[in-house]
């Protein structure tokens, strides 16, 4: 089914000087699609050529339309020698293939060269004429919409959520040992860019076909990754969630996510009669089910297989389905059966979504993860991706069985990642085991489902916390209590998840970013020995990361983690573990106990004194944190809850199972208050270090909050000021006798300093929250650690009350009054506009109202009339799925870009920092330009998936690969001008705070 692609090259500007003699350029353009190439005329002697070409028409298959990028090359004409390339522009025309997305791509694109970076801009217009009507078209995979957003996009409605789709394609890497190779500088990197562009197009098309097979029309939570496997090739893989989406006629029906949390919270009946049901509860553990890939025996095969550690799966397989909880009653059983039947048809009941339509998530079991260490095989056949497919299938199977062990049929918030060093590759997958509402998974509309939910399934506010597994036949020892919210069902004492906080969850206080950081030295080894060593280290790392997370969570006085992401990175001589999550206090879960320190040698007086000193410090920190994050849960007397029957002995043994002296310790008073305390044992200097490192985490300066989820629990009065940023740091470790401790300290300092720097840089945005803080660690070389952070800082309004439903009326009143204000202000705005069209209004130059990092939003409105001078529209970028204070009206298509930049004059470009700084700025610029050309004004769900940096200072060379993606959207500001707090009556703020209501 052919389509006609039409391209017009309009003009260029700011071209580089290619002819030294005349200081000018004779530029022309080559337009290539598939195997067809067109050329414009040569525009002589100009840095701002006006080609104004005819329409170049390509008649192509829609398969090609999906796979191929449009390649535009700008060249300098040279009569005698070969024409010099100035640079290239790759345009993904996929957005033009959906009916609802962009209709034309038109705008200025930066001309990019892998060596020189951006060299001027070119104005291009691209259109696609489809010969067939949409219905026929839909039979190919062209019509399928892709979204990076991991929730149902704002102006759509999910009719059915079909489930997991995955695909991978492999190819040989045109360039893997770039530094030592003889080649023309640009050639191989350009070949690589082109290839990856082609591969991602192909991948997307294949995924699209799978979606159509499932009768879906969209992929949500689309995550595409590249594995640069070096000699063995290049893997492009993608996962996503197939859905059938309906466009909402009035997108207003969806409130922006920032307004939604914790409405009507005071209706929650705290003083409801307790459930008289007194079940004896088992011992407790954090809800987490991990497996480590071990080499099961000495006879290590080329591909290490993965197996469980101590959590045997065999007894659990049948468990989830049959005996539904006595607690849940018949509904739960029914639900479970339905869900199961709906999900059983699927190979992998996984969902890459992290936020869900209301009612979708019934119960959450806990985090499930699986890792496996593989050796990359040298022999590689691009036409047979089966090996890689088999690896992933294996891991997914494992995840599935873990979920089953937790009594869950589905995994939500699912993601996959790899870490590669030389020929060893760690494959990781993680997600959250969950029980889902079957109605979303079958045909039928959401509304019907919602109604039914309201009838049948009463309070879902705390429902997701309730355990999905059978408490008599628990997969692992866990500490259960009755839900602090409904008092009817059991909840665990701690909940770890990889998803975002459900919008209807009741949270007390604010959340915070919690990180566990860990390094382990490893001997340098080859191939199998190396893989075995890594396999052996993995479980210990997982265990320690987990312990650290748990300790830090307790130290914060919180009881649940959301958005948990554990990254294990492999290097030549070390392994790094970095876990990030957002800690919160869920009202439904029990109050966390404190942390108790126990010394091993109680005889020594001074030692004991030291211990008690530490204990005091820890207790102080907990108290301080509770205050800082406004955690003041309601005091509930013991009888009401029903005694939870703690079994401290078993508990502590489980948590520190490796310490031999745990028995001795538990003789100490563990009934710390009404809750059993978490015991930390100081038996050697290592443990001391651990405790110290617990206390070294400095809380953010006042006015700052941070989280790695979409929104910060407890804050929802965002203003429209956002600043997305990427920060990269590389440190070199001195190779002299590195120990694990020194390494840990260095890594910890690196992360902490990075956060401190961010807080400092963004200080003018206070009060502000860093949202979606995404840390990535890599080990580019022996002694180098690279940490990349992408996040968005959003200012919130301190004074304004949280906008709960009951204040909506007030809000609209306020809106009305601010409207009046706006009317008054408008003439002023107008005149400042007219001033700004003048080259430089002096008044504006002198009075700069706002400090630095903010205000792209504000200025957008003010500079609206396109004055002759400023033609560059503002494009916002955010890793979140929404834009505060604005409504997304249209999704224009997915942005998925891959760039390579190289230099052979590193010092001249300002060293590694100068080089990378410029490159990242250029990447941002190219993303913005593409979005603007699609007619959008923002990128949501933006993510920098890869930032691979390599340097060779001796040769004065460096190279960097960056892969970014996101959704191009059009947004409209909710109120044209954000009039800030001054007009908002502050009288009702404090009193109507959600926290206030809950805590009373």
């Amino acid at each position: 089914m052919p389509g006609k692609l039409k391209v017009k090259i309009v003009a260029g500007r700011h071209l580089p000087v290619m002819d030294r003699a005349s200081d000018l350029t004779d530029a022309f353009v080559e337009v290539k699609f598939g195997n067809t190439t067109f050329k414009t005329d040569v525009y002589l002697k100009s840095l701002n050529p006006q080609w104004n070409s005819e329409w170049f028409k390509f008649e192509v298959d829609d398969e090609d339309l999906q796979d191929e990028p449009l390649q535009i090359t700008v060249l300098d004409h040279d009569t005698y020698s070969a024409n010099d390339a100035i640079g290239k522009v790759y345009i993904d025309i996929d957005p033009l293939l959906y009916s609802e997305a962009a209709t034309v791509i038109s705008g200025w694109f930066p001309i990019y060269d892998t060596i020189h970076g951006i060299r001027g801009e070119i104005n291009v217009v691209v259109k696609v004429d489809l010969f067939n009507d949409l219905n026929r078209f839909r039979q190919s995979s062209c019509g399928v919409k892709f979204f990076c957003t991991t929730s149902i996009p704002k102006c759509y409605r999910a009719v059915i959520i079909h489930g997991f789709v995955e695909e991978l394609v492999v190819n040989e890497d045109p360039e893997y040992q770039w530094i030592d190779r003889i080649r023309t500088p640009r050639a191989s990197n350009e070949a690589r860019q082109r290839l990856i562009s082609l591969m991602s197009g192909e991948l997307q098309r294949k995924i699209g076909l799978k979606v159509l097979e499932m009768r879906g029309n969209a992929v949500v939570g689309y995550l595409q990754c590249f594995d640069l496997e070096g000699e063995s090739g290049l893997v492009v893989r993608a996962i996503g969630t197939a859905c059938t989406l309906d466009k909402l006629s009035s997108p207003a029906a969806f409130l922006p996510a920032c307004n939604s949390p914790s409405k009507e919270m005071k209706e929650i009946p705290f003083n409801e009669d307790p459930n008289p049901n007194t079940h004896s509860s088992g011992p407790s553990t954090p809800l987490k089910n991990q497996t480590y890939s071990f080499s099961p025996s000495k006879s290590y095969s080329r591909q290490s297989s993965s197996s469980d550690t101590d959590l045997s799966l065999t007894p659990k397989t049948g468990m989830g389905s049959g005996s539904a909880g006595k607690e849940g009653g018949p509904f739960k059983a029914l639900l479970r059966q339905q869900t199961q039947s709906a999900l059983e048809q699927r190979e992998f009941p996984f969902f890459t979504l992290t936020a869900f339509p209301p009612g979708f998530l019934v119960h959450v079991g806990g985090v499930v993860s699986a890792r496996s260490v593989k050796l990359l095989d040298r022999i590689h056949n691009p036409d047979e991706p089966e090996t890689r497919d088999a690896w992933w299938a294996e891991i997914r199977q494992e995840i599935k069985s873990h979920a089953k062990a937790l009594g869950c049929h589905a995994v939500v918030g699912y993601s996959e990642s790899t870490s590669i060093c030389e020929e060893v590759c760690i494959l990781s997958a993680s997600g959250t085991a969950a029980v889902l509402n079957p109605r979303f998974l079958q045909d039928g509309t959401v509304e019907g489902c919602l109604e039914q939910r309201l009838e049948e399934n009463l309070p879902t506010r705390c429902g997701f916390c309730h355990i999905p597994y059978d408490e008599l036949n628990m997969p692992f020892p866990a500490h259960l209590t009755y839900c602090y919210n409904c008092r009817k069902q059991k909840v665990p004492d701690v909940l770890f998840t990889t998803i975002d906080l459900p919008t209807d969850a009741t949270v007390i206080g604010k959340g915070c970013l919690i990180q566990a950081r860990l390094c382990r030295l490893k001997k340098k080894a080859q191939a199998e020995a190396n893989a075995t060593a890594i396999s052996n280290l993995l479980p210990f790392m997982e265990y320690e990361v987990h312990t650290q997370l748990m300790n830090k969570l307790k130290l914060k006085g919180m009881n649940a983690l959301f958005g948990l992401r554990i990254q294990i990175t492999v290097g030549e001589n070390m392994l790094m573990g970095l876990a990030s999550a957002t800690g919160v206090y869920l009202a439904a879960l029990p109050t966390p106990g404190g942390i108790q320190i126990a010394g091993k040698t109680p005889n020594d007086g001074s030692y004991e004194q030291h211990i008690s000193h530490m204990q005091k410090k820890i207790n102080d920190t907990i108290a301080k944190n509770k205050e800082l994050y406004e955690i003041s849960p309601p005091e509930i007397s013991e009888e009401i809850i029903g005694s939870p029957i703690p079994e401290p002995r078993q508990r502590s043994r489980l948590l520190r199972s490796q310490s031999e002296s745990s028995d001795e310790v538990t003789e100490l008073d563990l009934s710390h208050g009404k809750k059993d305390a978490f015991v930390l044992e100081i038996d050697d200097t290592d443990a001391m270090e651990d405790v110290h490192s617990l206390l070294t985490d400095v809380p953010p300066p006042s006015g700052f909050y941070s989280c790695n989820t979409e929104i910060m629990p407890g804050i929802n009065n965002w203003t429209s000021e956002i600043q997305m940023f990427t920060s990269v740091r590389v440190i070199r470790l001195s190779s002299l006798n590195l120990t694990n401790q020194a390494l840990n300290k260095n890594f910890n300092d690196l992360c902490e300093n990075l956060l401190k720097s961010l807080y400092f840089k963004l200080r003018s945005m206070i009060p502000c929250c860093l949202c979606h803080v995404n840390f990535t660690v890599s080990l580019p070389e022996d002694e180098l650690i690279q940490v990349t952070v992408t996040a968005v800082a959003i200012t919130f309004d301190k004074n304004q009350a949280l906008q709960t439903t009951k204040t909506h009326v007030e809000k609209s009143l306020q809106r009305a009054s601010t409207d009046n204000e706006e009317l008054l202000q408008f003439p002023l705005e107008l005149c400042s506009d007219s001033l700004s069209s003048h080259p430089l209004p002096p008044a504006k130059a002198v009075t700069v109202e706002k400090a630095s990092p903010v205000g792209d939003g504000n200025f957008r409105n003010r500079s609206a009339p396109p004055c002759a001078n400023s033609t560059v529209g503002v494009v916002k970028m955010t890793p979140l799925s929404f834009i505060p204070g604005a409504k997304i009206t249209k999704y224009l298509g997915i942005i998925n870009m891959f760039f390579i930049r190289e230099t052979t004059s590193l010092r001249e470009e300002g060293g590694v920092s100068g080089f990378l700084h410029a490159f990242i700025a250029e990447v941002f610029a190219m993303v913005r330009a593409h979005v603007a050309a699609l007619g959008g004004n923002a990128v949501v769900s933006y993510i920098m998936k890869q930032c691979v940096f390599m340097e060779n200072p001796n040769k004065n060379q460096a190279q960097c690969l960056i892969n970014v993606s996101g959704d191009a959207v059009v947004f409209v500001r909710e109120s044209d001008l954000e009039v800030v707090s001054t007009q908002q009556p502050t009288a009702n703020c404090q009193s109507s705070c959600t926290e206030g209501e809950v805590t009373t």
Partner: protein
Amino acid sequence: MLGPGARSGISALPEVAWRRHARPQQCPARGARAPGVAMTSELDIFVGNTTLIDEDVYRLWLDGYSVTDAVALRVRSGILEQTGATAAVLQSDTMDHYRTFHMLERLLHAPPKLLHQLIFQIPPSRQALLIERYYAFDEAFVREVLGKKLSKGTKKDLDDISTKTGITLKSCRRQFDNFKRVFKVVEEMRGSLVDNIQQHFLLSDRLARDYAAIVFFANNRFETGKKKLQYLSFGDFAFCAELMIQNWTLGAVDSQMDDMDMDLDKEFLQDLKELKVLVADKDLLDLHKSLVCTALRGKLGVFSEMEANFKNLSRGLVNVAAKLTHNKDVRDLFVDLVEKFVEPCRSDHWPLSDVRFFLNQYSASVHSLDGFRLVAQHVCLCPGVCPSHPPVSPPFPHSVRRPAER
């Protein structure tokens, strides 16, 4: 009329003060790194979707401080105490900003590029600030180079200027290069000098006028560095430059003409020779004097001194005007004016208002002189300078309007 006080737009006084008092000695950030920690930072960057601009750091950068010095100055400003940051954080932050500014500098050389470029997303008001600050200059510096040829030779002298003024060499170079760049761009252009500068450098009206003055002075090479002229501020000269551009250049006659505001109108300077008659013709001189004296009697505090000196003053002014056909004398215009007119007035302790009265009357009376109307008209706009007063406006005593009949 602008006095020096109102000119803080170009020579921000606090900066100067800061520079004097806060000479950095040594960077604490270097020493702050704990010796025991076995790591060194290889790479450290921060890139925002909206480019972060810290005004304070920008100022330090513009003032030519090294990263080390800038960090030391920031530490001294108490920022660490305010924010609870460490010196290492400050160092990293400063480096980041310096890198950004360095990347922006190329664009700042052609400000319209800054507006059209795609790499840095900067709100318009911030762009304006960047440009305005980049092109701002120090009063002390501009006084050193005003009227000098903007050549390599002068650039070599920047070391001395830096030592003399206490402005860093880097900052001197930036300012010098700015002057030169603006000069080169507008040199051959037609039309209004101020408009051209504004259009190509997107400067504020005030700053564009200042640059017009600098370009005008550089082009005509007016001597401003003599000791006698030291008491005059840049503002004083800029005021004169503006009047001269308005009245003495080719562009002043006819903006459609192929010439520009930079060069003095040769024909007009030739015509000024005709003024000699005012002092050469005894009758005319007496008549002129009596007209002026009649008009000013009782109004001038220094009437008797004026009356006694009239002949000398008039001769001084007319001679200065008549000599302007020679390039050498054009360059010495301000020196001559001060010697021939300002100093006599000053020695007789003329108050400022009296100078103004006198000059106005001096030029107005010429109109009533028979047989002179066709030659020229003097319009004395400038009240002159009294030693006891700070110079409120330039000492330039007369600006001559072209003959109406041309």
